[in-house]
């Protein structure tokens, strides 16, 4: 669906030059769920913005294997316009692309049903909890029935219990709709439960890629399986140690890093 070759992005010039992404190559297949994991500041959002076409790369190419590939984008915060009710927030993308009033109402309602919030069509954003608001944001990204869904840490502001719940619901949604999803998180648990493939991004470079061979369908119980725990350890072992965090050796190791 998408093929990225030797993508680099640099801000500024001369002394102020900041290399945000360097020489990334990447591909995304139709129907795949791929997650990019990286620390804050590693360039994850910038990468999604490039895929979305919001910014242009300094060098390299992004090839879209379909004409007029449509993309939905979910941000870390729901970004619902506070003066519009839920339904009108969801049909904003349709309104912008000039769809008639009747059609956009119907399509928005369908999208809202997909995230299980049909009852909340006429709520105003301030009446929604964090999880509900983010589900509305997902419905807004789905309303144009995009080929690809970009999700930038959509659940990181939610508490852990709710987050698991949102993960499982997103899995169901993905299975039902067959969307291609490129997801960004800094939670390895979240990446493992959701994706087919995990890509580690560190300081603008792809460090490593993992296939997640945990069988589907996955659910709450998957968090407790052996394979999940094992993969979790393997992925963590490839994460660089935080440079500014002193590491305290545990009792069963003598300072040699094997984390």
């Amino acid at each position, binding site marked *: 669906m998408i093929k990225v070759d030797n993508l680099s992005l640099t801000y500024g010039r001369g002394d102020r030059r900041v290399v945000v992404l360097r020489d990334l190559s990447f591909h995304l297949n139709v129907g795949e769920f791929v997650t990019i994991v990286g620390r804050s500041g590693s360039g994850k959002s910038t990468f999604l913005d490039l895929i979305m076409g919001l910014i242009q790369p300094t060098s390299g190419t992004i090839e879209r294997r379909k004409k007029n590939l449509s993309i939905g984008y979910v941000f870390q*915060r729901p*970004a619902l316009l506070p003066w519009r009710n839920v339904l009108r927030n969801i049909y904003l993308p349709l*309104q912008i692309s000039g769809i008639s009033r009747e059609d956009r109402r119907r399509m928005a309602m369908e999208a809202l049903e997909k995230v299980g919030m049909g009852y909340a069509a006429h709520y105003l954003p*301030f009446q929604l909890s964090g999880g509900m608001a983010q589900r509305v944001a997902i419905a807004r990204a789905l309303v144009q029935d995009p080929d690809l869904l970009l999700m930038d840490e959509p659940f990181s502001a939610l508490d852990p219990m709710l987050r698991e719940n949102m993960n499982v619901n997103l899995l169901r949604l993905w299975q039902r709709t067959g969307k291609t999803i490129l997801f960004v998180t800094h939670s390895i648990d979240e990446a493992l439960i959701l994706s087919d493939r995990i890509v580690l991004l560190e300081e603008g470079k792809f460090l490593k890629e993992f296939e997640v061979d945990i069988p589907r369908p996955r659910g709450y119980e998957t968090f407790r399986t052996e394979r999940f725990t094992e993969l979790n350890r393997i992925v963590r072992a490839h994460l660089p140690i935080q440079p500014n965090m002193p590491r305290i050796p545990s009792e069963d190791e003598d300072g040699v890093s094997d984390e």
Partner: protein
Amino acid sequence: MLRNIFLKGLGFAGFMLSIWLAWHLIISIFAPPAWLFPSPSMVYQRFTELWEVEALQPHLRITATEIVIGYLLGIAGALLSGYPISQIRLLEKVLTPYLIAANSVPLVAFAPLLILWLGNGIEAKIVVAALIVFFPATISTITGFHAQSPIYKRLMRSLRASKLQRFLYLELPSAVPGILAGMKIGAPLAVVGAVVGEFLGTGLGLGHLILEANGLMDTPQLFVAIILLGMIGIVFYMLIMALEQILLGPWHNKKRR
């Protein structure tokens, strides 16, 4: 909602009642002569006398016209100049100091000049009112158009909204609280502007009625004019509050996501 309006109405009635009581109290304790401090009943009597011979209505009409037109012109000017200023950084940098300076100059001091230039008709008074509404309302409008948070800009960009769509769906609605704040500040200023204009010129208007009453030592008439002005101010303010309620509705003052 209804309960809220009811409570506000009750509070307002209580406020008026206590003024009325205090007024009576002053009269009964100090027993001042009528030319110094007339009693409520004397003022009311003077009001009905003047009203019956149609001595108030033309003044009321003129002053209300000056206030409303001056106000609308001032606000329209603020909207038309506030938006471009907020969008063009250079313009804003250059103009903001002057806007703030103009706002701290007592603009009513220009009223004699305006009367000199525009004559003693209704026009000069409208311009005085418009002018003192204009500056604070412009500053408020500019602030309003800066109020949108970056996350919404990012949303609009990702949805490929055109410039016009961005204005209609994001910039204008986000600016509404700022614009309304300017409108609220402007309402009493328009009243001040119109009355000061009338003080300077001869002719019609409640301001003129005040001067005339003062000259004739007709203190009850003075009170009538002052109370009418106060009532114009209150009605005006309530209209703007109603507009605010309609435009901002329930999301007003609520946390945003």
